[in-house]
């Protein structure tokens, strides 16, 4: 694998990590309101998956959406400004943490009702197939979404109509505070694909390379054969469900153990072994400057003007 690609994956994961650490800080300073769901620990899934997509592909995700937004090429500035509710944000402050959008990147949101976004992804895949424009839709969801009716209806229709869509369950083992064993009668979530029936895969979500190859296979299957896939990426979030959640339902030991498999540290070790230490330092400095610039940009930006409050209700 060429070094530039490795460094780019590292840069993207580090950007998400530092973006969210700063967001958490700003939240405790009450500069960010509402809910703030952090992706910290899960970066390899979004970065690995999105790194194999084409520009015409659609990305749909749930409310834990900062990571995929940044992985797709959304800027730290527009993301941070959105968190602060500023007019320079990626949704001009109308969306907030859970509702990032960038139509120019086919980043289609940022959705807050668990499971309800799966049919949307199927619809984008439907549109792609209808027009013959060769785009694939990828949909990220949490393990908490797999018992919703919308999950099952989306999967059933995707298979029935041969839609080019890839569903990625980011299994972080908790639906908010409820552990997976209380919400699913199996520890292999991918087998739900068998009922429709749909291709399935399971991947180590800490390993950005494993994620890349798994998603690449699924995306190729979608693009070339119009066949959907359900993937379970096993991952872990280090923080609570949201900033409001101290995460007391997990032991410190469990979280520390999971951190030993940190995807960014793992890739960093690999880069070091390749003799790229200097590059790592350089990237770390660049990301630090970028995030600080984004925070300043967001803080300096104005709120949307009151007279625009009713804009965009209708086209």
């Amino acid at each position, binding site marked *: 694998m060429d070094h530039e690609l490795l460094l780019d994956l590292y840069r993207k994961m580090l950007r998400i990590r530092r973006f969210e650490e700063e967001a958490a800080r700003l939240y405790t300073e009450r500069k960010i309101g509402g809910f703030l769901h952090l992706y910290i620990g899960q970066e390899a899934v979004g970065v690995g998956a999105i790194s194999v997509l084409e520009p015409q592909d659609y990305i749909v995700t749930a409310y834990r959406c900062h990571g995929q937004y940044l992985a797709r090429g959304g800027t730290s500035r527009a993301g941070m400004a959105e968190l602060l509710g500023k007019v320079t944000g990626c949704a001009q*402050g109308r969306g907030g943490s859970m*509702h990032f959008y960038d139509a120019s990147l086919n980043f289609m949101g940022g959705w807050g009702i668990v499971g309800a976004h799966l049919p949307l992804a*199927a*619809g984008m895949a*439907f549109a792609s197939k209808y027009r013959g424009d060769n785009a694939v839709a990828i949909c990220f969801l949490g393990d908490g979404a797999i018992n919703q009716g919308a999950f099952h*209806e989306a999967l059933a229709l995707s298979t029935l109509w041969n839609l080019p869509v890839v569903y990625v369950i980011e299994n972080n083992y908790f639906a908010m505070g409820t552990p997976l064993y209380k919400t699913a009668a199996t520890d292999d979530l991918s087998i739900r694909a068998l009922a429709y029936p749909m291709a399935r895969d399971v991947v180590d979500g800490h390993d950005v390379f494993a994620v890349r190859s798994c998603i690449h296979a699924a995306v190729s299957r979608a693009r070339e054969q119009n066949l959907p896939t359900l993937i379970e990426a096993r991952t872990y979030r280090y923080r609570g469900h949201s900033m409001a959640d101290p995460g007391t339902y997990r032991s410190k030991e469990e979280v520390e153990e999971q951190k030993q498999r940190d995807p960014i540290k793992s890739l960093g070790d690999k880069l070091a072994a390749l003799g790229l230490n200097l590059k790592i330092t350089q990237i770390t400095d660049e990301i630090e400057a970028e995030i600080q610039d984004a925070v300043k940009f967001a803080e300096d930006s104005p709120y949307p003007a009151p007279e625009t409050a009713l804009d965009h209700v209708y*086209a």
Partner: protein
Amino acid sequence: MDTPTVNSIFTQTGFKMREIAIRDALKEAMSEEMRRDGNIFLMGEEVGSYNGAYKCSKGMLDEFGAKRVIDTPIAECGFTGIGIGAAMAGLRPIIEFMTFNFSLVAIDQILNTAAKARYMSAGQFKLPIVFRGAGGAAYQLGAQHTNSFEGFYAYTPGLYVVAPSTPFDMKGLLKSSIRDDNPVVFFESELTYSMKGQVPEEEYVIPLGVADIKKEGKDITLISWSKMVHVALECAADLEKEGISAEVIDLRTLRPLDTQAIFNSVSKTHRAVVIQEMHAVSSYGAYISHLISSEIMDELDAPVALVSSAEAPFPYSKGIEPYIMTNKSLVMPRIRATLNQTI
């Protein structure tokens, strides 16, 4: 060439008129628009091979093929969401609910996704999608198949809500709804699909947000929409025999609402009765009553009356259904009371 825009059948000249049923008016609207724009497709239960549960899409599968007239499994949440996703990606779906009774398992998709996607993204996406089907009550279908849910949709900013009553209005407004870049919830009625009326042979559209005076009058204004317009017209015909002149306003669209048409009429007649099939509590008619009472109170000679279905689920038995569901015998006493009242 631009399609002519018309407001009311009563002011039309130069069109060649013929009589067709509402189901055919709807089919013509969809078919004409689908011929015009390849991005439009029709999706729903029984819309294809079965020709529509109420035959509103008769022959459309043959004309447009299975790519554009798409039979779905019974999975309203799923295919509604697929329609919304396709609209965000640039297509122009028409999603048919066999009846709006079945739309509630998809209502999250409509209220919480379709209505809000544009606003939440600060205008980055258009949502050119129509949700259409039979709304309101039919006869003896029992409580779960008898609901007037237009208020749920009309409550929600980001949606347009259309509820016409005649073949002419159905066709012109459905064409406008399909051409609109916003999500439109379009209510038809099981009981009126066979109702016939004059419709031009030529193409035309009716703009959203314009009410229509279905009968002019000077003594009292009857305000309604959808099937209840016909109840209002029946009442007005009875009153006419007694020398009482009632004006019948057909709102046609609930969002956007043509408030000026209501105010103009009530300012002329000074008495108003709102007739709805919904229950009264938290209802659209209550909002209309509030608007009149608060905005043009000085014009009123009597309190605004609101006639609604009773506060009970709709029963099966024809022995009691008429005592629950808004109908002429329930409306007439309220009109008489309003005519006799003074403030």
